[in-house]
């Protein structure tokens, strides 16, 4: 379980806190979505979890342990993160890339054993990229690359998984495939925390949505509780209506055109 308690994140020289007293939990066996406008603090929360941001107040913890009390490799054995941005300078073979997910278990020198190879093989097949394992990462399409990155995180075999915007640049089918994968991982018992702008997909897949605005939790709860038109309008500063998705009945957001200026 990932828990944030009154978390404050502040960047050096910034005028205000990027994250300002955020508390929520991402439980095992459920898919929790973290949403909110650009700059609302979503990625800063992920960075705080990775101990990559200054946290002058509050805490981020995993299974009851403050992340600051864990070593970097202990942390990496508890939570796997697919960061928002990742540019590899040099191509690497997909199999080698996914095998780096075993780094927190192996360290610098020990050779991968049977269990490591099994973890890599399972991660490749879970993410649906087993057939790409001998390709180089610069020969992948955007959708393949995102799934390969998820495979690397799965190879870490952690009880918690965090993904920062994993479906950016993906077409409908690839995006749906990733949401289905994340939902099934959550059902299998992982704590899955998903940072996403795709409110309509999140409303269909997530068990809980935490909606941020200006570094604070604006509202959180089940998709039906969170997806309220007046709330979303004031958070995003744009006129919207919330309707029902005709296929499954989940709340669906429709942003409106601005009324014509006459």
């Amino acid at each position, binding site marked *: 379980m990932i828990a944030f308690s009154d978390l404050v994140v502040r*960047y*050096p*020289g910034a005028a205000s806190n990027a994250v300002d007293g955020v508390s929520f939990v991402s439980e095992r066996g459920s898919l929790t979505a973290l949403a909110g406008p650009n700059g609302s603090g979503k990625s800063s929360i992920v*960075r705080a979890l*990775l*101990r*990559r941001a*200054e946290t002058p107040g509050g805490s981020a913890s995993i299974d009851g342990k403050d992340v600051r009390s864990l*070593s*970097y*490799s*202990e*942390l*990496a*054995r508890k*939570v*796997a*993160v*697919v*960061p*928002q*941005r*990742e*540019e*590899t*300078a*040099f*191509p*690497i*073979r997909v199999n*080698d*890339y996914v095998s*780096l*997910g075993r*780094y*927190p278990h*192996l*360290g*610098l*020198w020990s050779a991968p054993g049977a269990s490591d190879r099994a973890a890599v093989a399972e991660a490749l097949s879970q993410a649906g990229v087993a057939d790409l394992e001998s390709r*180089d990462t610069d*020969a992948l399409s955007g959708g393949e690359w995102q799934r390969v990155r998820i495979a690397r*995180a799965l190879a*870490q075999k952690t009880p918690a998984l965090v993904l920062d915007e994993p479906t950016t640049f993906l077409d409908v089918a690839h995006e749906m495939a990733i949401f289905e994968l994340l939902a099934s991982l959550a059902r299998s018992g992982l704590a899955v925390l998903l940072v996403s702008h795709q409110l309509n997909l999140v409303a269909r897949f997530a068990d809980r949505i935490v909606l941020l605005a200006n570094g604070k939790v604006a509202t959180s709860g089940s998709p039906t509780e969170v997806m309220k038109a007046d709330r979303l309008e004031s958070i995003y500063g744009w006129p919207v209506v919330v309707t029902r998705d005709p296929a499954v009945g989940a709340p669906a957001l429709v942003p409106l055109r601005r009324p014509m200026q006459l």
Partner: protein
Amino acid sequence: MTRFRSWYWLALIAALLVTAMTAVARGAVSVPLGAVLDALRGQGDPTAVAIVRDLRLPRVVLGALVGAGLAASGAALQGALRNPLAEPYLLGVSGGAAVGAVIAFAFGVGSDFMIAIAGFAGAIAAVFVALAVARVGGRAVRADVRTLLIAGVIVGAFANAVIMVSLANSSPNNIRGALWWMMGSAADATWQRVTWLAASTLAAGGALVYWAREIDVLALGEDAAASLGVDVERAGRRAFLLAALLAAATVSAAGLIGFVGLVVPHLARGMGLRTHRPLVIAAALIGATLVVAADLAARTVAAPTELPLGAITALLGVPFFLVQLRRLS
């Protein structure tokens, strides 16, 4: 995409051995191969023994160590800084070493050993200045490793200015000595120098090979590396310092020899190597072969005049690299 086959290792080692044997045999006095083998064991014509064991062999071993150190340093830096243009000389290592040596020349220091020490001290000083500048520039607790690259370039530019000022105030004789030193040469190889260089190259190179998997992870980018359990800042600094140490040792032994640290890692990648442990080792073998071959050319092509080694490495390496670039694109 090229796949690296196991027999490539044999080919790399064989290429180095053949080049080294040729370099030991050829020169102002050519020694037949059979006589070389005898001389290596201390048998046969005493003149041949002296040429092979006291003159040529230390020079060849020195060249091989310099090439291996520069190439391994470049391979590690390019990965850790995620920049295909990174090379040891960009980090202020060459500039700092040159400042140390030029200042020594300006003070009329004649001993090769003292000049080597001055070069080494200058290189290490420059690296620490670059680290300090990067930390100030990065402001936060975590200095971006790429800030190091910029800091290195800035320190290098400052070093160049210092070199020009000291050269402008030196006697022609000292200027000549400093210029020759900056052009790089393996001519002053002694077993003492070789031993010293071998020890530092094996120690720093071995450490890089040991930490190579960490460089694989660093090469993914800082957030991804952190998510895999790497202390990004410490790991980046470690790779930077080890690479700088390797390069500083080569500079103090043979002056400035450009091109090897930048291009040899790309040649090794072109053979299909992707992860840093084999990459660093293969780059070291290729770099050693290239510098030994370049040194052979430097002392034989225009004999009895010796050409600057630093220029020959580029003259030999650029065509290879262009062929490779053409093949890849």
